[in-house]
């Protein structure tokens, strides 16, 4: 996916100005940056919910979006929240529900299939949101700080769930965060933006994500922190 000369203004103030970036196919690109630098705006431009100047070229048609909040319909059960986004693709009801059952088993939430979102913990609700994105068979996956506000153990579990699901289909993924550790843990490429939305650092991480040695990545971690400062 290529983003070329992207400019987004809220009123007079530009949030992104002539922003260009290339996202590798079937890789996880992590965009790091402070709050207000335009990370979420970039994702919203990609899905087309924000007007912009410039060009976004992408081959991917099926976009999955995991928000910071789980963004589930409160009146639909866990199963029905996922089923809703499959209605267009799977006309057959049985096929649709088989898909829902499979993905819920994958994320360990099959027992909660008939539960309403209000009865779930934050981590469980976010797992439903991830499950929905993968059930949809997105070929482009956008993640907007999906692990924000979760405690360390829950975050680790959720990252494992995410990576297990990701490994099955490997969709092109743009992952927005301001957490350096999350980025180093998950990304194939890290792009650091400064407060004005300019790219100040870019690095590719070659190792398989699960075998990443924290010591080996110490210099990259240091460089990322440096670029943020």
């Amino acid at each position, binding site marked *: 996916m290529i983003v070329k000369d992207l400019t987004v203004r809220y009123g007079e103030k530009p949030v992104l100005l002539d922003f260009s970036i290339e996202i590798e196919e079937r890789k996880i690109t992590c965009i790091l940056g402070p709050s207000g630098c335009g990370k979420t705006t970039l994702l*919203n431009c990609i*899905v087309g*919910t924000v007007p912009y100047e410039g060009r976004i070229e992408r081959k991917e048609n099926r*976009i*999955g*979006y995991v*928000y910071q*909040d789980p*963004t589930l*319909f*409160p*009146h*639909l059960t866990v199963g029905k929240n996922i089923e*809703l*986004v499959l*209605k*267009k693709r799977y006309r057959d009801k049985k096929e649709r529900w088989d898909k829902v059952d499979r993905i819920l088993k994958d994320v360990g939430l099959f027992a909660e299939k008939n539960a*309403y*979102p*209000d*009865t779930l913990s934050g981590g469980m609700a976010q797992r439903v949101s991830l499950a*929905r994105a993968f059930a*949809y068979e997105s070929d482009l996956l956008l993640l907007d700080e999906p692990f924000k506000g979760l405690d360390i153990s829950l975050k680790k579990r959720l990252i494992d769930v995410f990576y297990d699901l990701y490994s099955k289909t490997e969709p092109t993924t743009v992952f927005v965060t301001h957490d350096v550790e999350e980025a180093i843990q998950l990304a194939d490429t890290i792009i650091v933006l400064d407060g004005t939305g300019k790219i100040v650092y870019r690095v590719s991480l070659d190792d398989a994500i699960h075998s990443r040695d924290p010591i080996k990545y110490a210099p990259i971690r240091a460089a990322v922190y440096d670029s943020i400062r």
Partner: protein
Amino acid sequence: MKSKKEKREWIAGAVKNVLYPLLALAVIIGMWAILAAVKNKPLLLPMPSDVFERFFLLFGEQNFWTSVFSSLGRTCLAFALSFIPAYSLALAAIKVQALSKIFDTVVAVLRAAPTVAVILIAYAFMQARTMTVVVGVLIALPILYSAFSSALRGVDKNLLSMARTYQVSRSRILFHAYFCSILPFMFDISRSTISLTLKVVIAAEILTLVSKSVGGAIQVANATFEMSYLLAWTTMAIVLSFALEIIVAGMKKFFVRWEK
């Protein structure tokens, strides 16, 4: 078996939902009784016991049920005729800003118009029975429209963006995001608006002397200067208002099962 904690919560709930309202009613009736005793003019202010006795006698009166159900029927009809247009107009208003400006102005005028004046003006153009429904609509519609407009404007933007991103059809977005997600609020506002509609319908019935209606009975009581009869019918109107609110609350409990 209920645990100790559950028992405590049940008792606390019962105190909050039953005991406190009963206490408030007892205070009102107590003050009324004291005032009636001090005034000592039963023709002007009868004792609560006399009124309650008269209240129960109402059930045996000829035309009692006809009066109650005709007033309730007109209230429900006026409410239904307000609810659907109010929702449709609010939906149109959040989609088209120009419509929002037009509707907001009309609604502001309707809201500001004095109820009695509306009743008298409407009475000049139509039959009394039709007029009571129309007046109910004119009062309920602006309230429902304003409430629905703000509820629809408050629909979670991320939820809408999510649904569009996942290519959920427009009709499903309309149903799930713009209807189901505001359903709890719709019931809440309906609860207070339907009792207000009943009040307005009864007021219109009083002013235009609609026979076989709660308002008509109140007017007859007023004309014959039977204060205990008047207060008995007033109590009946309050009971009917509570009954409508309880029905709406029950409907909310039935339809909005996802709320904790």
